[in-house]
C-alpha cells in the first residue's frame, strides 16, 4: 500500500475531495464538447460516394448534402440547417469513421 500512495489523486464527489486511484477507463473517457449548429458529423463509418453541393452554395434545411455508403446502404446525408456551405473536410472516395466532421455550414 505504501508504494501505491504516489498514484493517489484528489477526486471530488459532491464538494468533498477524496484520495483515490483512477482507472484507465476513467482516464481515457471521452471529453464532451458541444457541436456547433451547421457542423455535420458522420454517424456511421463508411465511404463518401457523392457530394451534392459546392462550397459557397446556399442550402435549405433537409436538402441533400452528400451520399455516404455505410453498412451496405447508400445513406443520404441531409442539411441540418439552412445556410451557406462553408467548408468540406471530405472528398468523394474518402473512407471516414464515426463522428468525423464532414462539412461546415454557416447557418442563416
Amino acid at each position, binding site marked *: 500500500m505504501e508504494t501505491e500512495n504516489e498514484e493517489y489523486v484528489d*477526486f471530488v464527489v459532491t464538494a468533498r475531495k477524496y484520495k483515490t486511484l483512477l482507472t484507465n*477507463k476513467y482516464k481515457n473517457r471521452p471529453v464532451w464538447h458541444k457541436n456547433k449548429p451547421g457542423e455535420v458529423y458522420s454517424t456511421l463509418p463508411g465511404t463518401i460516394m457523392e457530394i451534392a453541393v459546392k462550397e459557397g452554395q446556399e442550402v435549405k434545411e433537409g436538402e441533400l448534402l452528400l451520399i455516404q455508403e455505410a453498412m451496405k446502404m447508400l445513406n443520404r446525408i441531409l442539411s441540418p440547417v439552412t445556410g451557406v456551405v462553408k467548408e468540406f473536410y471530405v472528398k468523394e472516395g474518402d473512407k471516414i469513421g464515426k463522428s468525423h466532421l464532414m462539412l461546415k455550414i454557416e447557418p442563416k
Partner: protein
Amino acid sequence: MKLIDILNHKQIIMTDLNKNIQALRDKKAVVEMGGGEKAIEKQVAMGKLTARERILSLLDPDSFHEYDMFVKHDGRDFGMDKKDFPGDGVVTGTGTIFGAPICIYAQDFTVAGGSLGLQHARKITKIMDHALKMKCPIIGINDSGGARIQEGVQALAGYGEIFYRNTISSGVIPQISLILGPCAGGAVYSPALTDFVFVVENISKMFITGPNVIKTVLGEDISMEDLGGARVHAEITGNAHFYAKSEQDCFDQIKRLVSYIPWNNTQKAKSIEPKEPSINLNINEVVPSDPKQPYDVRNVIKCIVDDSDFLEVQELWAANIVIGFGRMNGETTGFVANQPMVLAGVLDCDSSDKAARFIRFCDSFNIPIITLEDMPGYLPGVDQEHAGVIRHGAKVLYAYSEATVPKITVILRKAYGGGYIAMNSRHLGADFMFAWPSAEIAVMGPEGAANIIFKKDIMEAEDQEAMRQEKVKEYIEKFANPYVAAAKGFIDSVIEPKETRSLLLHALELSALKEEIRPAKKHGLPPF
C-alpha cells in the same frame, strides 16, 4: 454336438468380439487425433492445448466420458461431402470436478478450425439439454474460427439453437465459458449469455467484427489483442469475469469457482470445514477514520471470511466495486463491497452493471449476500450521464430489491444519498443492517449539504470560507454518524468492527430458513 465343436464355436465368437473391440478402439483413436498431427503441432505452436487435453486437465482424473464421437457433418456443397471432420470439430461429454457432475464441450480448432456447422452445434445442444435435464453445471470451451461458411444458414441455425438453450438454462444451472482461442462474430453471444467467462492472456480473442473488417471499413489499424484480447475484456469491456496468465492457471480458477457454487438452483453450494480468518490484520485498523482516505476494502472482507479466502470476480473491470465469493462458517456467501481505493468507491455505469449481475447470480443460486458499504455517491460527469447512469444505476436497486436470499449490509463508513439507498438498504428489503461507529449516513457529503442548507448564512457572512467551514463542521457533528438512521430504525445496530464476523455468522444462521414470497409474474423487467 461334440464338446470339441462347442469349444471351437466359442473360439470363433471370442475372435469376432475381440475384432469388434479392436475396430472400436481404432475408430476412437482416429477421432481422438482430431485434425491430425500437423494441425495439433500448429495448435501447440500457438501455445494452446488441444480440446481433449483441456477437458482432461479440467475434470477429475478418469472421470471424462465422451459423447457423439462418430457424428458426421452435414455439408454437401462446395466439395464438403468429400471431407471428413473427426468429431465434427467439437468434443462433448460428461465428467466431474471435485465430484460435482459437469457437462462439458470443447471446440477443436485442429478440425476445420473448430468451425461450427449444424452437427457440431447439435452435439453442443445435446450436451446442453443433458445438463439442463440432469441439473448440473455446463462448461463450454470456445476455440473456433466461426460459422462454417460452406454450410450457410445451417451454421446460423446452430448458433441460434445454442443461444436459446443458454437463455433457457440461465438461472437454473451455472454456465461457464472459456475463451481459449478465437471467438468471433455471432459466436461471442453464447459466452455473453453465460454466467462466468474466463479468458487467458495472449490466447483469448473475442470480437463481433475483426481487425480486417475494421481496417477495410474504417481504415483503423488495430491488432486482435488490442481489439478483443483477454486484457481488453477483463479490464475495459467487462465481458470476462476471470483473467488468467495461462490455460493451467485458468483451469485452476474454474475448479475454485466450481467449489463455491451449487450444482443448480434447487441446491445450496457444498459447505466445507469452517475456519477462522487467517489474515494478520486488525479489523479496527483497516479503515482510516478520515472518510477522505482510501484503503483496500478486500482487507475488510479477508478479516471476515473463513480462512481469509476470497475469490474475486471481475477483479480488473470497474474496480471501484468489489464482488466475489467467500465462505462464512463453511457456507458460500457472496460479497459486494464499495472500493474506496479506486474512484473513491463511487457507483457508475460499469460498477452498477457489475454489482447487479452478481447479485442476481447469487439470488438465482441460493447464495446469501453480504454488502459492505463505503461510498460517496455516483460518479459525476457528462460521459456518465450520457452513458445512461440512471438506467445502469437502477439495475442495482432492482437486483437488491428482487433478491430473496438473505441480504445483510454493514455500513463501514460513508453511505451518502442515492448510494445509501442502492447499497442494499433496509428500504430495499435488507434483512440485517449493521453500521460501524465510523458510519456516516446522510443525504450527501457534509460539504455539499452545508453549501445548500446554509447557503444564506454563508453568503451573508463576512468571511464566507470561515462560515462554510463552521457549517460543514456543524453538519458533520449533527448528521455524519450512524445514529440519525439508527434513531429511525433504518439500521438495526451500531457494532464494533471486531464484532462484525460473529454478528454476520449469527445473522446468516438466523436467516438459513428465510422465505420471502413475491407476487407471481412471468418475469420482471429489469432496466437492462
